[in-house]
């Protein structure tokens, strides 16, 4: 059976179509989810796409975190529902306390879009199991508030427990502490990623096909997971 991956659209979501396209290219069915609808329509996993939910007013992700759909997603995530937050989605996951830390204004204060090398540090999550640990991938970054911060203890814990999912290579585009580009929760089902794998799934439009691995990972994960 084809896996069904939900892609949430908040007001101000921008990369929702791109995430849905990536899901389809990976071989799954993309199911649109609406911020105001708490029903997840039986999806097997959820992607929170990039963008500026609710205009990113107040603080990135701070309003989206209270959307009806997020209450269901948060509850599901605690029960093992795989959730990938990309960029704004990562910010929302932090605001929802599904992931530790916070994303703050880029250190250089500019929005920056460039093709970015990453090292996948953990292949043990629901969203990275198609990679080898240590694999280097090229994926676009584009954010204004992508600087990952957390207190030292949290950072140490993330490192010690293998929860740093990806790190920036050859230059840190936003000042993230310890070059962190993505992290996961303890269970490995919730992943937040600042770079945009959904923009690296087609040779014609992306810098590489490396982003596809994040989406094929979830299929692999779901295939292995008990129904």
């Amino acid at each position: 059976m084809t896996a069904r991956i939900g892609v949430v659209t908040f007001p101000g979501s921008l990369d929702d179509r791109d995430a849905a396209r990536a899901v389809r290219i990976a071989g799954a069915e993309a199911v649109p989810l609406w911020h105001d609808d708490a029903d997840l329509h039986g999806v097997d996993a959820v992607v929170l796409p990039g963008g500026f939910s609710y205009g990113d007013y107040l603080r990135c992700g701070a309003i989206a975190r209270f959307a009806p759909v997020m209450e269901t997603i948060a509850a599901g995530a605690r029960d093992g529902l795989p959730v990938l937050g990309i960029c704004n989605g990562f910010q929302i996951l932090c605001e929802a306390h599904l992931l530790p830390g916070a994303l703050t204004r880029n250190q250089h204060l500019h929005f920056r879009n460039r093709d970015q090398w990453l090292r996948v540090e953990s292949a043990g999550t629901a969203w990275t199991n198609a990679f080898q640990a240590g694999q280097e991938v090229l994926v676009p970054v584009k954010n204004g508030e992508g600087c990952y911060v957390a207190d030292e203890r949290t950072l140490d814990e993330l490192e010690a427990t293998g929860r740093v999912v990806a790190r920036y290579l050859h230059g840190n585009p936003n000042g993230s502490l310890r070059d962190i580009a993505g992290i996961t929760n303890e269970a490995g089902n919730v992943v937040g990623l600042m770079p945009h794998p959904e923009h690296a799934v087609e040779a014609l439009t992306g810098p590489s096909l490396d982003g596809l691995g994040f989406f094929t990972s979830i299929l692999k994960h779901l295939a292995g997971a008990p129904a």
Partner: protein
Amino acid sequence: MIERSEVMGQPEPTLADQPSATGPAVDPAGLAARPASPVPGQPGPGQNTSDTARAGSASDAAELPVNGYPNGVDTVPHATATAGDLQPYAELGLRDDEYDRIRQILGRRPTQSELAMYSIMWSEHCSYKSSKVHLRQFSEKAPPSDRMLAGIGENAGVIQISDRLAVTFKVESHNHPSFVEPHQGAATGVGGIVRDILAMGARPVAVMDPLRFGAADHPDTARVLPGVVAGIGTYGNSLGLPNIGGEVVFDPCYQGNPLVNALCLGVLPVDRLQNKAAAGPGNIVVLMGAKTGRDGIGGVSVLASATFDEGSEQRRPSVQVGDPFMEKLLIEACLELYDAGLVVGIQDLGGAGLTCALTETAAAAGTGMRVWLERVVLREASMQPHEILASESQERMLLIVAPEKLEAVLKIAEKWGVPASAIGEVTGAAQPAADGQAGAEPGRLLVTWQGHTVVDVPPGSLVDDGPVYARPMREPADLILLQADRAETLPRPSTPEALRETLLRMIGSPNLCDKSWITEQYDRYVLGNTVLAQPEDAGIIRIDEQSGLGVAISVDGNGRYARLDPYNGAKLALAEAYRNVAVTGAKPVAVTDCLNFGSPEDPGVMWQFAEAVRGLADGCAELGIPVTGGNVSFYNQTGAAAIHPTPVVGVLGVLDDVAQRVPMGFARTTGADHDLIFVLGETRMELSGSEWAWVTHEHLGGVPPRVDLAGERTLAELVAEAARVGHLRSAHDLSDGGLAQALVESTLRHGVGARIAVPEGFTAGSMPFVFLFSESAGRAMVAVPRGHEKAFTALCAERGVPWTLIGVTDTNGGELEVRDHFTVGLEELRAAFTSTLPSLFGDNAAPIGSTVTEAVPAAAGGTDAGTTATPVDSAPVDSAPATATTPVDSAPATATATTPVDSAPATTPTPVDSAPVDADATGIPAEAATAPTATPADAGSSGPAPTGTGPDAGSRPAG
């Protein structure tokens, strides 16, 4: 849930039945009875108590003169009764005779609201009163096009690209607001052009921004540029529109008057095309989008239609403030309305706000309109009617909706959290008086405020009957001398060392250097259809994922060329945009333009304008592609000093399959394989107006390069054909900076070296320099895979395109070699190419504190009149040029230390091996050594017509 979904509660209007001067203000659609909250089910009351209080006192006001008017507002009856009152029309930019004409039309003095409306609609910006007589040529000379579904006069031109799909695109200016308040000015420029595209029924899918600033190292540029770039980025990125190209040009002539133009591309199914006509008496007029506030009042008249002088910064309140989030919601709401077939007509609110939207929609249909102004959802409750009518608050659209569909429309608005309110209805047209229109006089725009009639005008009088001027024109007196001062007589480098030094200096100059500092602040990936984006010659967007159908767009202009010869300068801008599109393999089909000029009241400027329009119209006719729409921006000057005439031209092309697009960078080849590098077209000694003359001699004089549009057309057809059959690995237009610039850009794109030799005829003296730096038009550099060269050159011969084999690419060589002259390593090139903007505007890769803190140049505050205000940019650090004290030339070491320069996509992290690993000692193939200038017809004599510009060219001496 949605922060902004609440709609403001206007006090219940209690006035629908009050008589007005022109008859009873009836409410046939029952609008007056509709709840004030425009979205059913949304509680609206109580948010604006001050307004309630004020409205509650409306009846009291009848006795108390407020604002000098009985009832607190200038009504039609009052205006009739006080015909002799003095009015501040001159302050609003109206001339004596214009004011007299208004009185004549109305048969009385205009009310305060009417005066505001006429002043903005008859402003230069809205009425095109100085340009109209010239712009007609775009229609009169337009070549036939079976693709054009909508053209000049619509919000944007629409071009059909397949049986079921069309695209719409337009470029517009937002120059003056962007000088006064760079961030918001530029941001709302993006917002405005996006709504134009949206109004045609299209989903906006990409933006581009041609930008022009003063001298790169001028302190005020450090205020304007970072703000403009951040504003464009913030707005466009938040809308989810990829920014795929544009220009960044520095020239002192733009010091007090930067040019911020914005282009948007949209896509629509052919049957979703919308129009702005307010057809169908009885239909409801709905205002949807952001609340109306006091921002931007007088934007078009105060800002856009007057020359800057001292104190321009005080006009900041005339600049609109953007909310991209609201615009994003507005886009989605409008598209849902279109798909559900719920709107009869639609118009965006931009310059001249509600006034423009009401009058244009009514005039387009020949109908009248009845508007209850108190139903406009206000941000500031104390706004007066004339302010509401003139406000240029952003993110608003005017919809014409059938009464039975109103509920559905409001429901969709509510879904997206966009305020919407029914503010009026369409009334009958003048000729066949519609039945049941006992109320408002047919064909008139009747606006009431709290029961008082404040506007009663024929809508067409504001839209179509504005003044039209054939302003005096005179060739600028200095032009003859300027043209006589040719750059071809300047001293030219002739030694290898001097050539090498010139190359490094040129590629690091502000106009030619790498623009990543700017373009990295724009999202190029969103929507997932960006096939090419800057720094490529043209941006390419995939339109149809199944078939691969797509479009390419480029936007170009060269103010220096136009200053030297506006007729041919406009043609050169057209030619460059056309060529940029063509070298990607696309077929150019349509044109949009943004004509940036000084004051039309200066006969010299007016002459430049007329010449440029004539050149562009002639050029389009010669190329066989029509102008589909655009914009004129006058008064781009500070005091008496006008900018260079700057026609900016956008060309759109179609690719049947974007997979066949040709990129500009030399491609990596496997093993020792090389691609062959050809120059197509003729290189002449053409240095006047060139980047070299400016950078090395600060020289502007002579006549610009020769234009040969027939040759451009042939070149375009050749490239398209060669791309289709797979002869081309890369192609790059030759323009600013000549061949040298193209070589550097193509090598650095993917870190692929090249070895070239100058051909016969260019080897002696300073001729290598001419070959490398001449800006002759009609040329491109292409890389052809080995094995294809015979077929390719045969194709060139067949098409009559001159070709010259100049060398080979060298994937692992790591350097650019011009044989017998000089060699530069790619890393040295890259350092020179990429360090300029970071050292001027701050190395944005550097951590805060390392470079930025020590900047504090006194310059940033400056003594310049324009910079006394603190930058209002949200990122104050931006404005500090981080290494203002570091000369550009010495910067690379530090810049590259912190900036990873391997921006070349999809290559290896270490882009270039510095050690040459080539077995071939010379590296240049035997055939290149002889470098046959295999022009089928001898260059310069026959072959492509050397001038080809028709009889008009005779008016200007040719190079």
